């Protein structure tokens, strides 16, 4: 199945792309997704965005699956066509 990982704001500039289309096996979990994109994230994101120890987005990032509440549980099963939104919560203005 395919899921889209969308990067907004400063993360888009760091990753260099607005989104990544990721191919995953059926019934893949959020952990599987993190493992799949991990090397790319490790290479492109700074420490404040990617936690290399946990091989996950840092606790400071807000991750949402299809605009549902904040995604933290790595056993969450993903589905075909999911959009995973990754943002650095920002303030200002």
């Amino acid at each position, binding site marked *: 199945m395919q899921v889209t990982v969308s990067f*907004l*704001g*400063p993360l888009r500039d760091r990753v260099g792309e607005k989104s990544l289309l990721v191919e995953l096996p059926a019934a893949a979990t959020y952990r599987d997704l993190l493992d799949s994109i991990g090397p790319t994230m490790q290479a492109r994101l*700074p420490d*404040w*965005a990617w936690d290399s120890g946990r091989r996950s987005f840092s*606790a*400071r*990032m*807000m991750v*949402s699956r299809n*605009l*549902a*509440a*904040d995604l933290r549980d790595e056993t969450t099963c993903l589905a075909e066509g999911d959009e995973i*939104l990754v*943002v*650095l*919560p*920002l*303030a*200002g*203005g």
Partner: protein
Amino acid sequence: MGKLLRVDLTSRTLRDEPLDPETARALVGGAGYAARIINDEVPGDADPLGPKNKLLFMTGPLTATSFPTTARYEVCTKSPLTNMWLDASSSGWWARDFKMAGYDGLIVEGVADAPVYLWIKDGKAEIRDASRLWGMDSDETQAAIRAELGDEKIKVSCIGPAGEKLVPLGCVMNDEQRAAGRGGAGAVMGSKKLKAVAVRGTMKVPVADETKLREVAKGLREGITHHPVVSQFTPYGTAFLLEDGWVSGDIPNKNWGKGVWRKGCELLNGRVMAETILVPHAACQGCFIRCARWIKINEGRFAMEGPGPEYETLAAFGTMLMNDDLAAVCWANDLANRYGIDTISTGSVIAFAMEAYEKGVIGREEAGCDLTWGNVDAIIEMIDQIGNARGLGALLGKGVKRAAAELGRGTEAYAVHVKGMEVPYHDPRAYFSQATSYATGPRGACHMHGASFVLEQGAPRPDTGIPSEVDRFSNEGKGILAKLAQDKASVVGSMVMCMIASDGMIYAGMADALEAVTGEPWTSERVAQTGERITNLQRVFSLKCGITGADDTLPKRLLEGPDEGTHAGKIPDLSVLLPDYYRERGWDENGRPTPKKLEELGLTDIAGEF
């Protein structure tokens, strides 16, 4: 120690008076120092638009020094919108010239018998006739005064037609459409028939330790340059927030009735602005962040060149009204600034009117236009009506609280304000500490007086002692966040520096800057306590004006869960949040500072005044 200029417009007398050293030590300057004067000199029952109210223009100790991001001034008074404490801050270049003309602050009292303006140059001040300026918009006023006095370098703080017509949304404007926007200070200025304060200053401002001040400034610059959030302000301005703020639910849409509007945010954000209409231009005086926008729209009905909208205005005339036309928002921003009306409150009252129109409470004839969501012609028409206090706009210009009270028919349910101040565009249902900050804000719902939601976003805060990971939807432990954010904002408003820059600065840095400029010993603890002292002093004035703990609440709309988004269904619980906040503050269960707290803060003299 500096001095203040006191002007009595009734008797047309001017006099200099020295700053009080004890007040300056306790409250620094800006809105802190002004809180003392207003507490001492303005009766709680004074009519905000009457002769007993006073209007203060205040700088801070860092103004006009080499320290960056300090180009601001505070306008302080009793608000005609909320009937309580008001400080409104603006940036640009005016403050530097005012300070270099020899003054730290200006106290305006009384009422002139005809339109006047003040002209201050290098220690000399005079009252001049402003009859021919009356009726001009804020841009025209500035140009006319420069031409009259024959000096293009003169800086002007003024009102537009809205302030003259005593519109409670009227603000004070200066330089390139910078605004002391919130709460109706422009109407107070208009009530005194004071059209403008023109300044030109060339005198040097004393600094105790210039070398140290430059070192602190260097640290601030380095910290901000590498700050992942604050560094976004340079390329994209405050409007960067629209690009991804909708994911957290921070951005309100359709009069706070729609949880997410991705399409609107994708068309209105700072990146889009930078890629399409942004052109290089000067920043505020002495600022390296350069968040101010300058835009050029080459074609179409909204072709224009001038100052561009920042985040709050894009939300006000964009997402709140379901308008995704960036050029139309720019046009609306320019129009509101020329009339001199607060864009935040103006967007809010138009959103309120659009909802009332949708529900059939307001008809087309009454509105004078088709007030449907996203109708840019209607938005522009309503700004014109509000700015000129005509038609339905005369009612809306009083703010949503009074508009709903006069309209009735259930409109109170979607009049979104706290104590009469329209809520700025950070949704408290996305970060629950913000519910507390809005409900208890010193000037009503205000993000500039306590953006506590920042403390819920996971950034390290080494000076606060709070954990970096906070559950944004929890009602527990949020009182301390609101208190910290409000007190820090109070210090920022007394130093009179930029709120954005302060986000990259911890208390120790603020203490170093104050120590360098004043020569007095400052510590992080003293900075924190000064902020708390100022917040309490402003609260006491509002209590004297009749505010009670019952007014510390949120409007009905914000106590309903959003329909969609990561914050769908989330509702802050004020029955938990407020008692926690009062405990952290050392206030009683009715939101009143206890005698013990006032004694701790050195404010025992006002303990019996409310």
